């Protein structure tokens, strides 16, 4: 690989940027809503003991410096618009810009959630159509788009299980999970009051034989991810579903990896009863540096009565919100979830259409398999068969005690965001790579070259790899110290000189 190709060569601009509080100058003013001082004595209207004695210590910074502050900080972030961001199971695909425009239309962005239904017909129609489209893609009967993120979708799914078994008056307390499950799965199951039982996988997959011993009258269900976090399709899923159902339990599917399946196979046809999907993964809405996302939940018909309140319903040509659903698990958030995120996903689905969505999944799987086959001579893979939308490598066999964290940090120096690391837990030093369909072949080649180069460096220049990243605004950070002596806000003390 040629050094010239990497952004690090050019580096970032040579500036420091202090905390906004450290830029504060008493008396400086940023934005002013009005020049006029309000002519009101708060003390005459509000009891003195309820009034602030000292103003909140917010920074005092003029508008130009605030703009510079955030502009400078932004240059210290890696993002999808910068480059390849192959985080496994995160589906960091390109976020189309038309989505940002449509979600910012004033008729959406400035719409108050308590506005009367006759004045919100546009958003209610979109809500209804998006739920229908997602149900079709998943092969399910009904969808709620209210959960704010994947984890809240999982919790919703678990609460649906509870509501269903409560109505049947069955005391089912056990939730089965494979050892490859994402951490939110057990956390969501536990939050809904289930006892989590971890099931060991074999060759990366679940089989009916592995599940059977755990099934009894106390088993509420199985929560699996398909394709799973190793990038493998759970080939036995239908048989597993039948087995789970025969024990009176239900099957939940984490749809975080739906990007492999659109138009190709549908969870509903595999025996899945409930699933969540992530609009901020599969449906191209940006991740915002950690949210907002949106985690719709899709269910089979028999679970629809339990979906969260309210539901949008169509009556003749009009849409309204139905809150009078006695079996509903209730409300998930203050209002209806992340409406502006729905708009982005809806825009994407309209733009892509049925063929575009299918093509996206096909090319996502093509890209992952290409990376896999090009890198397998350099990085160890555990499972010999082909993968779906992501592939997992191990740091086994790396010389000089170079481990996954070193490889990840060195990748940053080559201008790439590292893959998901040390997950799934069943793989030693996992490097979980999901390229998505929006990466070109030439970008993949650059990434492959970088990983091969790092492998060479591990032998030839191990100290270089261990000292990475070298080209970022900060060097490797001490995470242990951060946790041992937590400093979680600015205290007013001067930062130490470098």
């Amino acid at each position, binding site marked *: 690989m040629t050094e010239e190709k990497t952004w690090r060569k050019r580096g970032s601009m040579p500036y420091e940027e202090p905390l906004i509080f450290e830029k504060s100058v008493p008396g400086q003013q940023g934005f002013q809503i009005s020049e006029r001082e309000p002519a009101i004595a708060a003390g005459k209207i509000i009891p003195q003991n309820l009034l602030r004695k000292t103003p909140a210590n*917010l920074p005092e910074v003029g508008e130009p410096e605030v703009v510079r502050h955030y502009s400078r900080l932004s240059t210290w972030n890696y993002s999808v618009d910068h480059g390849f961001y192959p985080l496994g199971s995160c589906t960091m695909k390109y976020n189309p810009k038309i989505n940002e425009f449509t979600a910012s239309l004033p008729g959406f962005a400035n719409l108050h959630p308590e506005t009367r239904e006759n004045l919100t017909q546009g958003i209610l129609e979109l809500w209804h159509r998006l739920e229908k489209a997602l149900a079709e893609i998943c092969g399910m009967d009904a969808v709620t788009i209210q959960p704010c993120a994947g984890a809240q979708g999982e919790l919703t799914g678990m609460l649906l299980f*509870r509501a269903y078994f409560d109505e049947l008056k069955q005391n089912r307390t056990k939730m089965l999970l494979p050892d490859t499950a994402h951490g939110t799965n057990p956390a969501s199951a536990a939050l809904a009051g289930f006892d989590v039982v971890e099931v060991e996988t074999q060759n990366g997959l679940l089989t009916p034989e592995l599940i059977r011993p755990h099934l009894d009258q106390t088993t509420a269900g199985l929560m699996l991810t398909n394709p799973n976090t190793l990038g493998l399709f759970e080939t036995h899923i239908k048989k597993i579903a039948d087995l789970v159902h025969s024990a009176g339990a239900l099957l939940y599917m984490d749809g975080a990896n739906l990007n492999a399946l659109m138009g190709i196979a549908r969870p509903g046809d595999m025996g899945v009863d409930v699933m969540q999907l992530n609009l901020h993964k599969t449906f191209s809405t940006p991740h915002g540096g950690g949210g*907002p996302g949106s985690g719709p939940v899709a269910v089979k018909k028999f679970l629809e009565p339990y979906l969260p309140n309210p539901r949008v319903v169509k009556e003749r040509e009009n849409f309204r919100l139905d809150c009078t659903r006695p079996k509903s698990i209730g409300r998930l958030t203050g209002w209806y979830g992340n409406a502006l995120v729905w708009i982005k996903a809806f825009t994407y689905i309209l733009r892509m259409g049925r063929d575009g969505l299918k093509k996206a999944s096909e090319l996502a799987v093509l890209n992952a398999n290409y990376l896999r086959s090009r890198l397998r001579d350099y990085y160890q893979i555990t499972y010999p068969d082909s993968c779906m939308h992501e592939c997992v490598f191990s740091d086994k066999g790396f010389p000089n005690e170079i481990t996954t964290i070193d490889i990840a940090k060195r990748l940053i120096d080559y201008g790439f965001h590292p893959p998901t690391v040390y997950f799934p837990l069943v793989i030693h030093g996992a490097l979980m790579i999901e390229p998505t369909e929006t990466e070109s072949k030439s970008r993949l080649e650059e990434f492959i070259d970088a990983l091969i180069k790092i492998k060479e460096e591990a032998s030839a220049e191990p100290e270089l790899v261990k000292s990475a990243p070298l080209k970022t605004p900060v060097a490797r950070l001490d995470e242990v110290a951060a946790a041992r002596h937590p400093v979680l806000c600015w205290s007013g003390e001067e930062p130490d000189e470098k």
Partner: protein
Amino acid sequence: MGFYFPHTEDEIREMLDAIGVKSIDDLFKPIPENLRLQKELKLPQGLPEPKVEAELERLAKANVSCADSACFMGGGVYNHYVPRTVDYLLMRSEFSTAYTPYQPEASQGTLQAVFEYQTMIKELTGMEVANASMYDGGEATAEAVLMALRIPKKPEGPILISQGLHPHYQRVINTYAKHLEHEKKIVPLTSKGQIDLDALKREPSGVCLVVQHPNYFGCLEQMDEIAALIKEKGLTLVVIVCEALSLALLEPPGSFGASIVAGEGQSFGIRPGFGGPLLGFFASRMELVRKMPGRLVGETKDRDGRRGFVLTLATREQHIRRAKATSNICTNHSLMALTAGMYLSLLGKNGLAKLAKINLERAYYLRQKIEASKLLKLKYSSPVFNEMTVELGVDAEQVIEKLGSQGILPGVPLKHHYPELADCLLIAATEMNEKEQIDDLVDRLEELARKEK
């Protein structure tokens, strides 16, 4: 077709050859044939961008937003001015198209900005630590209750909830805490619209008290008296704030012995967005930090001794603790936390205090007009910040329908949750409501009340 994937046919061929398969279809062989979709999805074909844009414009125009109207709606989502600078800065896709900052060296922008946000929330709430954000005020409230249950060694007694807590938030608590053994008990309000201190006094036990201040009906609570009672009874105090701007004017909940302060940060530069994405904020005492839900950004040093920021105390979280985590939250509302940080930086110490005062001024003007009216009446006499419950003498739904067609969104109806308040409207006045607009609202409300008589 020009979609968002760049592959040429030749490249696809080369890639298939390198993999060693004949067709893309071969890559899907792990999926059993009987599970492969044998038909096309029942969705329309993709549309070119101009057509998509036109369709979304049509849907957007079928709504009547705060931008199209004189808006007096609040009830947890407020119509405040968003400086264009905030919109502009949010367009920086370095922030919006990044993932959760798991690789701190490549994410210092997000991490530093969230650290600053945490500091601002700490300052505003008068607490010692704030997290990196929750989904919204409703979910943050439910998580606050779950955290309050983790504080005592043996949590006993009911969860006491003020009747003045947002009715939707009450329902979210029900959803999140349904399977827990703890009973939920509502502490009523007095006829003045504040929590009934005598009723609270009579409660024999409880794990925590959840109180919203200012409360859902706009009234300020008697925080000193509540603080004293909480201390006496050994309850954990959870204070919920739905109108975050009030924190710039009112003595912060931290001064009244709150263990947890959570709520809705939408007022800090976030558009109503039909209810989302909003900003759940969450603050606590430092001694309780390990019981907190959600992500925390902390300060540390790099190998060369330079200051830097990382996600920290992750042993509370799902990716480490799995079933034993303090919460299942993973993706939060980071970009909304950044929005609030930008907004609060722009307004600053004096600007935010002044804005809060303008809100107080407008609401006080409205209040005086209603007090002077022979047809309209304040439902509660307690002091308010920028929102109040007004008796219209007419069914509120009808009023909303009639004024809606005249370009006025007069407030939030209460009938759905409080049938006895069918003729009441929750009216908020912010910096967006000029005096003339308030005069006009009161005139029209009086006119409708007069017709009814």
